[in-house]
């Protein structure tokens, strides 16, 4: 029987009902009754879907704003650290510190006076003492530059930690939101389908009862 094959193979395009007026044809086919009974269930499904979408959108907006706000707050500290990376690698591009310039000028003057008072102004001893002094000064100056560059980098690392934490909060919050959204959307679609299925079954049972009654 062709119609049974259509039914069982999922090719159903309408509802097959007994044809009580024509015993020779046994059955007749009418359009899908759900199409005739209106689309209230469809509208309800769409309304629930809109609510789910709006809820998700609102959650995302709130979470994203909180995340971006945290990034904005941390940005100056992050930038300071990134700039310091360049300074860390290129100490020669930094100007001489006030401390170095004062130490250089006053130290050289004091040493020269001391050497002169001992009659060693132009001697190998003077070269040695000046060399030791300038070596010490250069080490101190480079140490300052290095530490001055390192400090903002550590601050930037803390800033990145805060940014990452904000990203975690955003991600975890939206993970729950998306899971709820997916579950709710799935449930919405499933309820809609379940209602249609129940209606079809009821119609089928009603028609079956009608057929039985007619048979008596």
């Amino acid at each position, binding site marked *: 029987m062709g119609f*049974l094959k259509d039914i069982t193979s999922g090719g159903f395009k309408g509802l097959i009902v007994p044809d009580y007026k024509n015993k020779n044809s046994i059955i007749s086919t009418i359009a899908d009754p759900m199409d005739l009974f209106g689309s209230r269930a469809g509208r309800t499904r769409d309304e629930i879907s809109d609510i789910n979408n709006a809820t998700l959108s609102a959650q995302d907006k709130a979470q994203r704003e909180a995340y971006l706000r945290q990034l904005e707050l941390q940005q100056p500290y992050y930038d300071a650290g990134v700039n310091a990376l360049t300074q860390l690698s290129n100490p020669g591009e930094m100007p001489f510190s006030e401390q170095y310039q004062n130490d250089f000028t006053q130290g050289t003057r004091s040493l020269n006076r001391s050497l002169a008072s001992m009659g060693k102004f132009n001697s190998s001893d003077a070269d040695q003492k000046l060399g030791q002094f300038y*070596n010490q000064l250069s080490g101190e100056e480079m140490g300052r530059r290095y530490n001055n560059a390192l400090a903002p980098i550590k601050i930037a690392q803390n800033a990145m930690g805060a940014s990452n934490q904000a990203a975690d909060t955003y991600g975890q919050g939206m993970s729950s939101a998306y899971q709820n959204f997916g579950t709710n959307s*799935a449930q919405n679609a*499933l309820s809609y*389908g379940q209602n249609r299925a129940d209606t079809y079954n009821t119609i089928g049972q009603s028609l*079956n009862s009608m057929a039985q009654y007619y048979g008596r």
Partner: protein
Amino acid sequence: MAWPVIAGMVASMAGGAAGGAASNAASKDAAKASYNAAMQEIQLQKWLEEQNTARLKPFYEQGTGALPEMEQRRMGTWDIMSSPYASQRGDMLSNAMTEQAALRGNESGGYGYDQSLRDLRSDEEGLGYERALDRVRIGQGNAAQTGQQYGKYANALSGALQQSGNLQGQLRQSTANQNQQTMGNSINTAAGYPAANYLYNQRQNMMSQPMSDPSTYPSQNGGYAPQRPLYSWGN
């Protein structure tokens, strides 16, 4: 079998099939909604991971850039004066000594300069290694953060897909069960009709026949029950 019986079976099975088809379509929609939500979550997690990785990148590269220097210093093959710090110190020392030599009418700092340069190299050997290690640690710390972030993304990816997969599996199972039940119920209902019809006809036949001999009533035969049909009266 009479045509109304067949028609009833067909009607019931048609309802069952239509119900199953509707449920099946809804399950596919539901599975699609769940999958789409999982994909959206994955995109967000990936975006967050990319944001973090981009911010961590300059610090990470500082560390990887310092790795060859650290290794060469460890092996003692690093040119100490090639470090920008040592080189800058060398320039400062040289300029100052040259200036002082000129003040004294000499051409260079002579022995004092050479001795100071050796001290500087010795000093920078230790300092430079520590600084290279510091830079490597900066990169390594950020590598750890990047790795953690990527791990979180991977976890989210896994969780989202698992959630979607579980839900899709449940939906498909639910659909299969429902199809089976609706078709089973329909066929069962339809198949029950001939039996009900048979009982109904039997009852009609029996009602049209006279009751048993009144002499067999319990009040007249010592309490024995009258003969009755063995089947149910039905309704």
